[in-house]
């Protein structure tokens, strides 16, 4: 699947490991929350896929071992993932990659980034153009976000150029 990073399509090195499959020997492994305990091993690049009802607390203890947290959006109207991403960044200080997967619209791209999401998994064949357009659409915002921005005061800020 194409992976969007900073508005550009990039290579995705991660392999989603089904619950009944063995862990790959030499690729970074993206596992479900269920398999997270057995997947944790020194030296392994590990990611976890969180369902929409997951809370940051569910993975808090494992954060030092995680390079990637994929947050699932079952429907673009379901905004729980925004709070989940932001809590991972702001409360738990997670600095690895946060990836949005599922049904997401380009119109939500800025919101995702401002909540601390780093990458978006696009459906196969998706055109990145509307995503790039969405990135440049707003130069200003009215509230603090998870990401570092140039605050004009505590409410207003100028957003980083894409």
């Amino acid at each position: 699947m194409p992976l969007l990073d900073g508005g550009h399509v990039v290579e995705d090195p991660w392999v989603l490991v089904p619950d009944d499959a063995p862990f790959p020997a030499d690729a970074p492994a993206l596992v479900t929350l269920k398999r997270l305990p057995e997947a944790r091993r020194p030296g392994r690049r590990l990611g976890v896929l969180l369902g929409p009802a997951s809370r940051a607390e569910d993975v808090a203890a494992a954060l030092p071992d995680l390079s990637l947290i994929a947050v699932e959006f079952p429907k673009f109207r379901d905004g729980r993932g925004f709070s989940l991403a932001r809590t991972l960044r702001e409360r738990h200080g997670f600095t690895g990659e946060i990836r949005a997967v599922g049904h997401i619209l380009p119109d939500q791209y800025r919101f995702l980034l401002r909540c601390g999401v780093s990458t978006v998994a696009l459906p196969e064949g998706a055109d990145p153009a509307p995503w790039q357009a969405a990135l440049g659409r707003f130069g200003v915002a009215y509230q603090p976000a998870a990401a570092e921005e140039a605050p004009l005061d505590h409410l207003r800020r100028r957003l980083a150029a894409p």
Partner: protein
Amino acid sequence: MDTIERHAPASASMYKGAGIYRYDDFDREFLRERVAEFRAQVARRLAGELTEDEFKPLRLMNGLYLQLHAYMLRCAIPYGVMSADQLRQFAHVARTFDRGYGHFTTRQNIQFNWIALEDAPDAIAALAEADLHAIQTSGNCIRNVTTDEFAGAAADETVDPRVYAEIIRQWSTLHPEFSFLPRKFKIAITGAPGDRAALQIHDIGLTAKRDAQGRIGFEVWVGGGLGRTPILGFRIRDWVPEDALIAYLEAILRTYNALGGRENIHKARIKILVRDVGQARFAELVEQEFATLPREKFRLDPAIVAAIEAHFTPPPFAAVPDAAAALAGAVAADAEFAAWVGRNTHAHREPGYICAVISLKPIGGVPGDCTAAQMDAIANLAEQFSFGEIRVSHVQNLVLPHVRQDRLHALWQALRPLGLATANVGLLSDIIACPGLDYCSLASARAIPVAQRIAERFADLRTQHDIGTVFINISGCINACAHHHVGHIGILGVDKKGEEFYQITLGGSASNDAALGDIVGPAYAYDDVVDAVETILRTYLAVRSPGEAFIETYRRTGLAPFREALHAAA
């Protein structure tokens, strides 16, 4: 029509004297970006790149609803405050893109009922010319913040809520985390002990107040809402210090966003979450979130409050003596003027000034409707009499907030030929009604004609004045847009096998003594509901004690005498 005329900018002197938030370049840059985004979204929809399912939440967050006959554009009037030029721009939109009128709503917004999808971006661009927008007037996001229509003017006010309403408006605008909530989210704020903003029927209600040292803080109510499960909000905190306001709101919203119901649209409001987990547990969850938020990031620094405050200019009040005696003379000389002053004014904190309410409830009219010509005329009167400032009340009337007492009679005389001097504020014809089956695709029954027929039944204003204060609220379906649960007399339209019926409740209130009304009995057919309302009011006249208002009588007697009279009349 050429595009220059469609985009006619409002005059440069848009804010002359009006005590409203003045936009700067930052605010205008943001609005331009938002208009461009919406224009692109409409183009993608028209080109088939967005499905209707995907387009719907995007257009809703720009105030565009699909109704029974056409699209409806709901424009924000932030906390119900606008300048004369902004009202003229609404008149321009009404003439250019609609059928020459607009409808003021209970959430201090204005709706245009006949907008074509292709025109919507141009209509929104025209609004932006006057620093107006339709952002978050619908959709599952934080809606237009509402407040007391006499904010900044009322004699009983302790804190001017407009500054905080504006801060909340800015903070909630395109909030990255809270734009896809389980359901809509409404915040009301007041700065007076007398609740004129219906705090307890809001998702969050805030009372700004001062402690013994004069510091500002907020009492916070949460979990109120009407609809098919009416619940009054509970007080979650007696005091949130000013600098923690945004952090505390973030904590409530985040708790709701994570845990609110998403399966069933009818169980998705915060009131249901509060009911299901319990008030104490909900408060605990919010406190946990509040305790772990990066508080410094969200700290509402006094400097920010001061900066926002600087966007408001206090109206240049003249040092005039209190003119109560002169006003009393004019009142004594003219009974009609006396009736209007008695119902349509409110005490002002500045000596020599008074707030005047322009009733949008002429007998037989559509509650809240206003023609473009009336809007222009009211804008002119606002400039002549009220420093160019106009308010929308949550009962769908307009207010000129700062009128000199010695010019009140002249204002009244100017309003009369415009059909805008109906002396019925708070009387039985000052009805709140939703658009109902005449416009709304959700409605089960008509609401507007019921309101018109009740007002016509009591067309003689003397009878109305004798009955005195009584709030009648008529909703065309259980979504309760007209707040029928909290009307002194609440009327709910229901569909019974294709026929319109109306259920009546008594004893509701949206004020400090908030209460949900009691159902009086079986529903009435469309042809009988006005008779039932008349029977209720005649019963009140018969059983009231001297000086007792309708709601007081009801609280003393309960349903019994009203039920008996209705039964006897059936």
